[in-house]
């Protein structure tokens, strides 16, 4: 504040200027991060090596489908036996 003209300080222009600079910097940084990040993700999606399905994943898929289809059949039978009255 010492080397600023008094009216600048009293009008809080210092704070305003600083915050504007900071805001612009933040915007630039966030754009940098965002575009960098996007490029990184694009590269990752494009060049990712295929991870083969692990036995545990195959089990998860098979059990999910098995239980799911069985439950649906059971529920469909219940639905058929006990239809709701309109």
């Amino acid at each position, binding site marked *: 504040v010492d080397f600023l003209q008094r009216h600048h300080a009293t009008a809080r222009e210092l704070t305003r200027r600083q915050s504007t600079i900071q805001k612009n910097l933040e915007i630039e940084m*966030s754009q940098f*991060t*965002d575009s960098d*990040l*996007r490029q*990184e*993700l*694009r*590269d990752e*999606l*494009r060049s*990712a090596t*295929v*991870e083969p*399905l*692990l036995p*545990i*994943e195959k089990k*998860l*898929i098979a059990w*999910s*489908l098995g*239980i*799911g*289809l069985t*439950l*649906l059949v059971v*529920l*469909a039978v219940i*639905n058929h036996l*006990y*239809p*709701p*009255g*309109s």
Partner: protein
Amino acid sequence: MSNVYVTDIGSRNLAPHRAAEAGARLNEDWLAVILGLTIFVLALAALVHVDLIGWVVSTSVWSNFGQALGPVSKTYASLGGFDALLATYAALTIVLSAAAAALKTDVKRFALAFTAVFWIAYASWIVGNFANFAAVTPAEQQKFGISWSLKLTNEGAYIFALIVGLVIANFLPRFAEAIKDAVRPELYIKIAIVILGGFFAVTAAGKLSFAGSILLRGVAAIVEAYLIYWAVVYFIARKWFGFSREWSAPLAAGISICGISAAIAIGGSIRARPIVPALVSSLVLVFAVIEVLILPFVAQTWLAHEPLVAGAWMGLAVKTDGAAVAAGGITESLILAKNAAEGIHYQPGWILGTAAAIKVFIDIFIGVWAFVLGYIWTNHINVTPDADKAKLKEIWQRFPKFIIGFVITFVVGLYLALGTPADVAKNVPAAIGEANTFRVIFFILTFFSIGVLSNFKALWREGFGKLAAVYLVSLFGFVIWVGLLISWIFFNGITPPLAS
């Protein structure tokens, strides 16, 4: 792995609010419960002849603008339409600004942004209620003195709010960025769903066993979404498209369960980088918009005589809570109108209620499924140190809390309609009807917000097309049709009660 946070990507589209909100005590779910319950309780004051929220604005189908707006209750008839609109705007701005403060968002910026969101969204709603767009029956056309109408119904006006939001997102990106603080479809729809619980209770009260049997059929939706959809989409992403496990699990959750919240919950549970579910979520929104614009009209064309199949289908096929429940609302409106034109008058509320019930049933189990996957991932796939393994308490942490609000309003509404003396019970529908007017406004805000967040350019971004391709193949090649089949199996032949 880079250290990336949701806000890095969300600054452009999905979650602009999250950074500041991370330190907030309340999250959107709890705020939705508080705000939804507050509106519900205020509405119930009408039961003791104190009309606290009857001033909320309601829009009718109009050909003369002077007749478009009005307060929902006759008690406030002297207020006039525009003053009711102003009062509604002021009340919502104050209440939601307080919510923004609780979320540690900049209140001034929120209030300014909300002002734009409210007026644009509500203006779209008013335009959508213009008789040439909304009038359905020949009698209505005669009443408004018009010779033609698009017959979109008044709830079809949601589409107008959505389209205006889409225009802003895709042609006015700077403006979209400027109002992002108030673009919160998840908050708005959660508040609406809490209020919807009471409305659904009143609808269900007269046909309790029928409503119960519909709710029980919601179990089929849970089985389908978690055990069948997720497994198939995960397989497609991994085997056909060669995605890694980190990408495939949240992607499958987003497509198969309930969009954004599921993608984020599953991403967290398998310890994926937060950017992964954030990117998936932006895709979810774009495809949800496409579904909302297409499926209700498909349902009206082919499922008009199977109204509950249509409602269940919306709940199963349309992703994200907001889009699904709102699609249920549009579908109800379109189907009721088509049936009314044929002389069949179904009771309103059942198609929307079915769509919402299906969605809520699916939401309840997000935490459980996230725990199951988290357990498998941290113990068998990416074995992590004990401290980072999936824990049972995560089920509660990931539980969508707004469902508690839905259950409370449903139970209270049911009690008031069935367990109170006749002179009290007869006033319950009107009281909850006032709260329901707020529900409609939150739907409008949801539709507009979804539009503003849906930047279609994301689909064409180089490198992300493969993600969109999985979504496209899974959604339109599998999820929608299996959802229709299951809805048909469990709901065909069941029709809503006729209006008395």
